[in-house]
Each structure stands twice: as C-alpha cells, then as structure tokens.
C-alpha cells in the first residue's frame, strides 16, 4: 500500500537537495541560513515520525529561530532571460500548458476513479489520503514529461524550484505552524472559554440578534484561529444547537451549513489562514503581505451579511 510516508520521503529528498544547493550557493549572502532551514524541514520529513514529541518541538524552535532572526535570504540561480522565455514560449506553443495540467488531472481523475470504480477495492493507497498521494504521482509524471520533452539541464528543475521556494521563504511553513498553534489552543481550552463568553451574551426572545451573534462568533473565532473548522464545533455547541435549534426551533441543516459559510467569510479576512492569504502574496511577489486580504474584505463583508439573512429567512421565517 502507498502511504503518506512515501510522499514524506519524496518531500524530504526535495528539501534535502534544496538545502545542499543552498549551502553551495555563494551568490546568496545568507546561504547557511537557507541551508539550515530547508535541511531541518528535510529532517522533519525523513525522521519526524521516529523523533520524540520533544525533539520535534526543538526542531520547531530551531526553524523559528532561523526565520525569526532574519537569517533566510533569497537565491537567484541561473535561469533563462525574459527574451529567452518569449522565444521559448513561441517555440513550444500552447503545449506548454499540458504538463501543468497533468498534476490536477491525475489528482482529480484518480480520486474519482479510486472512489467510484473497482480501482478503489485494490486498496492501493492509504485511506483518505488518496488525493494527496495522487497529487505526488501527478508531480512525478509531469516532471518526467518535462524532462523528456524539454530536455533541460539535469539540475534545472530543483534550481528553478529553489528559486520559488526561497521567494516564499518562511511563509512556506507558516500554515503548518498555525496548525500546531491550533493544537496548543485546543489543549489549553481556548475554544471552550470563547464558547462560554459567546453563549453568555445571547438576549432572550430575539431570534435575529441570536443569529447575528452566532454568525459574528463564527467569523471572529475563525479570524482568530485561521480556520472555520476550529470555530464551528465551539459555536455550534455554545449557540447554534442549544439556542438557535432548541430554544428558537430553527432548521438545523440551514444553521449548520450557512453558519460554516459565515466562518469562511472570516477566513478571507485573516493572516492566520496563511496558505490562502499570506502564501499567495509571497508566491506572487507582492510588496504588501496583506495585499490578498485587502482585495477579499470587500467581498467577505457583504457575503457575511447575506449569510445572516439566509439563516434568518430560510432557517426561521420559512421553516416555521
């Protein structure tokens, strides 16, 4: 069976090569910082499963120490110039899109086939991880196609990848770090404290205010946690189920589904949702790390109001 561990070994190899090339890159004044940072990530992928929790924790502190003291630099490995690229894009034409499409197609078609055809009965992939594993297979396929078709220098894929990775820098591990923060928040009982506060401010006999506080709680707690999944169980247990469904007799399906979407409006507004909001700003080389969030707020606020209205109208007025 192909498990996630295979993918971790693959990622470990890629990060280890990036670490090695970083160490050898004399053009980058902070080359040893980069080498240590990507090297520690490689170690996490190779050995994280065997290390003790404390050793993994020390690894996290080391990563943060390197990034937090500004020891990561940006590399500039040799590549093609803009005029080369224009000429190459003419030469290869629209077929250049095909290798890029191999990855999502492998992931999507493979997942559908694995779940809805006898292919799934082979038990080839670790349960619930098939999409991510198929994504990894798609990456290998696309890379193979590119190597055969474009015949680049052997080191070109890892060097071009390293350029992009260095331009993202520390933001690359922020989503994983925020997930770790969520784990600590849960352990310290942050969710139940917030739920208690939110549950304590609901006035009696006013359905609309209760809906408003439920949606506001979903959005605000999502902004804090960076993830509506963390907010939903807390807000549903504090307000959604006891107040909206049980006291006021609302439609549970509407309250659940649209309440979650009110949380998604919060996701659009928070740097804590790093992989949606901060990583793309780095990936697109924006000057303002909050640039993506600034463009999203104007949609998030009116959409949040729509969610309040939908719950109030469909969950209460029409339902009762």
């Amino acid at each position, binding site marked *: 069976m192909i498990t996630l561990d295979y993918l*971790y070994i693959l990622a470990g190899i890629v990060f280890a090569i990036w670490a090695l090339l970083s160490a050898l890159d004399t053009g980058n004044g902070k080359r040893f910082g980069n080498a240590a940072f990507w090297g520690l990530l490689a170690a996490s992928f190779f050995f994280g499963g065997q290390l003790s929790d404390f050793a993994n924790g020390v*690894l996290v502190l080391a990563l943060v120490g390197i990034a937090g003291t500004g020891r990561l630099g940006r590399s500039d490995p040799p590549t093609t110039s803009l005029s080369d690229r224009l000429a190459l894009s003419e030469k290869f034409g629209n077929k250049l899109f095909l290798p890029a499409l191999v990855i999502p197609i492998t992931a999507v078609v493979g997942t559908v086939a694995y779940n809805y055809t006898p292919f799934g009965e082979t038990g080839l992939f670790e349960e619930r991880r098939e999409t991510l594993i198929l994504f990894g297979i798609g990456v290998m396929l696309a890379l193979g196609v590119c190597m055969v078709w474009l015949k680049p220098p052997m080191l070109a894929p890892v060097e071009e990848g390293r350029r992009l990775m260095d331009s993202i820098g520390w933001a690359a591990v922020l989503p994983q770090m925020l997930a770790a923060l969520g784990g600590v928040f849960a352990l310290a009982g*942050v969710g139940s404290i917030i739920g208690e506060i939110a549950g304590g401010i609901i006035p009696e006999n006013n359905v609309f205010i209760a809906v408003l506080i439920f949606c506001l709680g979903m959005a605000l707690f999502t902004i804090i946690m960076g993830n509506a999944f963390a907010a939903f169980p807390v807000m549903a247990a504090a307000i959604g189920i006891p107040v909206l469904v049980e006291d006021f007799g609302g439609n549970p399906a509407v309250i*659940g589904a649209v309440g979650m979407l009110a949380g998604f409006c919060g996701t659009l507004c928070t740097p804590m949702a790093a992989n949606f909001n901060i990583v793309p700003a780095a990936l697109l080389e924006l000057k303002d*790390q909050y640039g993506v969030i600034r463009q999203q707020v104007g949609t998030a606020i009116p959409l949040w109001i729509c969610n309040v209205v939908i719950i109030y109208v469909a969950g209460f007025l029409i339902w009762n």
Partner: protein
Amino acid sequence: MTNYWPLAGIAIVVAGFAFRFNPLLVVVVAAIATGLLGGLDFVAVIEALGKAFNDNRYISVTWIILPVIGLLERYGLQQRARALIETIRGATMGKLLVIYLLFRQLTAALGMKDIGGHPQTVRPLVAPMAEAAATMTHGELAEEDAEKVKAMSAATDNIGLFFGEDIFFAIASILLIQGVFESSGYPLTPLQLSVWAIPTAICAFFIHGGRLLAFDRRLGRNGRSAGK
C-alpha cells in the same frame, strides 16, 4: 471561576501580526504563552507544539510541485499564458476573472477542488493572464495597479473555492457539520446540508463578480495607468 488567561495568546497573535513581527515568531510565542497560562509546564508545551507540527506535515508536502512549475516558467509558461489571452478579442481582466470564478465554483461544487490553487494555477496562469488582459484594455499598468490585479487573481481563486466546495457533499467541512449535529442528537444527511451552500454560492458569485467588473472599470478611469 473560569481561567481567562489562555486568551492572552490570542492578544499576542493579534498584536504580533499588527506590528508585523515575523509571523513564525509570533505564532510560537503565542503558543508557548497560551500553554503556560493554560497550566501546562514548559516541556509539555514544547511537546504539544512538536507533536502538532509533525502531525501536520502533510500541509507542507505540496511544495514538491515547485520544481515542475519553476521548470515550465523557465520555458516561458507565463509568457504563453499572456500570449493566449492576447489572441482572444474582447478579453478583459474583469470578464476573465469572472469566468475563472465561475469555473472554480463549479468544479469545486463537483468535488474537484484540487483543479486550481495558488502554486498550480494562480501564479503561472491566472495572474499573468489577468495582467495581460488589463494591459490590453488600459495600457501599461502602474506598479500599484499591477499588484492589485495579481492580488485580485489570488482572491478570486480563494472565493471560488470556499463558496463552491461545500456544495459537494463529500467534503471535510460538510462531514464536520454532520458530525457535530449528530453528536447532539440531530441526524442530518450530507446532501441536506450541502444544498444549503447553494444560496451563499450564488450571492458570492454576484458580489465578487460585480466587484471584479467594477475593479476593471476603476482601473480604466483613475488615469494612473496611461491609456492606449
């Protein structure tokens, strides 16, 4: 009496992001403060942090896509994306992003949420296409405007994904809602829940689509970009 001190971690996060300290540093300081104030000892906090970081390695594994994207960019993928848009007569940035929004919502609603994404499609394809289309209608863009076009491309990917995916019933968030209600004695089917994602999806399409078209018009009006 409830101990409210663990909430100090939230204050650290908010202040840290507001003052633009390195976010990794902010997150770890907040985690340690929250753990200590929540009554854990220092070693236990470090262990919790290490365990959660290790359990979430699958999030960072997706960076293995970068060698493929980088290699294709070396051979002119972004330039190709621009050239393709320039061959389409009447293509505008607003229309292009509205179509991408719809494509992302519909494919996500059919369960194909991995078809887009920032490293896969936004950086190599959507952002260069949007920039090229904006340049075609408004002339060379001022740097500030080019940044906004790129940021809007990323925003459109997020909004299309978030307000499409819940229409597909076999998705983590729908299963989470189902689980939470079931454990309180309200058995719901995933399909009962996912149909209620449709009204919000329609609102999202009209609100964000309208903003995209307005953004395109504003780019033309503000005169900072020299018109053709």
